[in-house]
């Protein structure tokens, strides 16, 4: 299949950037989207041009590195799929495909399609941890966890931190990511000691990073490659309300 690509090219953080059109011919429908970009880059290198920079690592949908806005869809048209696991059979011969980086103040473009997602690391550093002795792992059955909580925590823990939720959000909010990281710990017994300081710290870090506020619009959960449900944000809200109502020595944020 032959495709026309319109790709965001930006030399560096200070460059203004623009959409550039490329023609890519003889694309196999069995290629992944990133392989198709590899083919384009091979040709650009042979032609002596600068290849298109894009993030990728495992290419099996579990690392969270790749992230492209494909025709206005975070990770492309297929639901529950990262860009690396998206195959060209999702497109038709002769299609024009627009490829852009995630757009958010908290995710500045480094080059072309690569954005800096350090803001997510700052949110994690503000509370995405538990207090646990190091050394050998304790016997798993010694701490019982209710099945429902274990399932919900696992659902949240599936978040790979790709940033698609921010990219799709009309408010540029990272609340689905923050909520996933808060709830995967607050639903488990191991996460209880820091439960309320965690939620305050992570929401504060989220706001400081320059993300927008959540209005429960629900665009995030639609594009999330791991299907983190929107009600995760409700769990964060409830923890946040409980945390802000607390008084005394354990007052979060004091």
């Amino acid at each position, binding site marked *: 299949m032959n495709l026309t690509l319109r790709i965001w090219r930006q030399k560096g953080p200070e460059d203004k950037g623009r*959409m550039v059109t490329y023609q890519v011919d003889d694309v196999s429908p069995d290629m992944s989207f990133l392989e198709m970009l590899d083919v384009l880059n091979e040709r650009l290198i042979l032609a002596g041009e600068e290849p298109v920079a894009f993030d990728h690592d495992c290419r099996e949908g579990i690392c969270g590195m790749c992230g492209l806005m494909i025709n206005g*869809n975070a990770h492309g048209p297929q639901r529950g799929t990262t860009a690396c696991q998206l195959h060209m059979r999702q497109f038709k011969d002769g299609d024009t495909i627009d490829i852009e980086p995630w757009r958010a103040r908290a995710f500045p473009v480094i080059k072309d399609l690569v954005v800096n997602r350090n803001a997510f690391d700052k949110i994690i550093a503000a509370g995405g941890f538990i207090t646990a002795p190091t050394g050998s792992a304790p016997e798993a059955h010694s701490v019982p966890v209710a099945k429902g909580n274990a399932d919900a925590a696992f659902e949240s823990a599936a978040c790979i931190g790709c940033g698609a939720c921010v990219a799709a959000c009309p*408010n540029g909010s990272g609340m689905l990511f923050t909520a996933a990281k808060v709830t995967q710990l607050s639903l488990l017994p191991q996460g209880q000691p820091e439960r309320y300081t965690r939620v305050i710290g992570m929401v504060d870090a989220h706001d400081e990073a320059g*993300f*927008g*506020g959540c209005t429960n619009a629900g665009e995030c959960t639609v594009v999330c490659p791991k299907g983190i449900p929107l009600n995760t944000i409700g769990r964060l809200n409830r923890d946040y309300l409980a945390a802000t109502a607390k008084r005394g020595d354990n007052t979060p944020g004091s």
Partner: protein
Amino acid sequence: MAVTGIILVLFLVAHMLGNLKVFAGASSFDHYAHWLREIGKPLLPGVWFLWIMRAALLVSVVAHIWAATTLALRARAARPVQYAHRKKIQGSYAARTMRWGGVIILLFVIYHLLDLTTGTLNPVGDPSRPYANVVADFAPSRWYVTLFYTLAVVSVGFHLRHGVFSALRSLGQQTPQGERRAKNVALAVAVLLCAGYLVVPFAVLTGLVS
């Protein structure tokens, strides 16, 4: 947003129930309207209760708009460079029209107060005869008033469709089952309020109330 929104929804419910008294006849409707000015008597003098309600509503509206503006400004700041290609709406249509819907509702509320509270824009405009004001307002010859009213009420419906769900979510609704319930409640509130508000002008338009 959630708390002020809920206060305003409670007002909408009370206001709708009051409106429906129009079907009980002119004297009953007028009597209800005059009673509104006397609630709290003799504990509170005259129209004090009404003014306390008005003050509470005004504070709620201002706080609601202030919170919405803060969110809108944050959203704008959070995405300084726009997408060249953006899929329209994948989540909820109602959620994405909250801001413009809110502006339409605000403009309508201003008009509505000038129309049926102060009577400035009403063809009758007699505060002692609210029933006559309503009937004159939605007369078939003034179809454009009914049209604007309908548009505004439908905007309120869309606003509540997302707003009620979002308020419950903000206040800690957290389970998937509860999410379905909250969305159904939001839809029911939106549809019931829309229907309750729209029957009055259409009853006048069709001559059912005259």
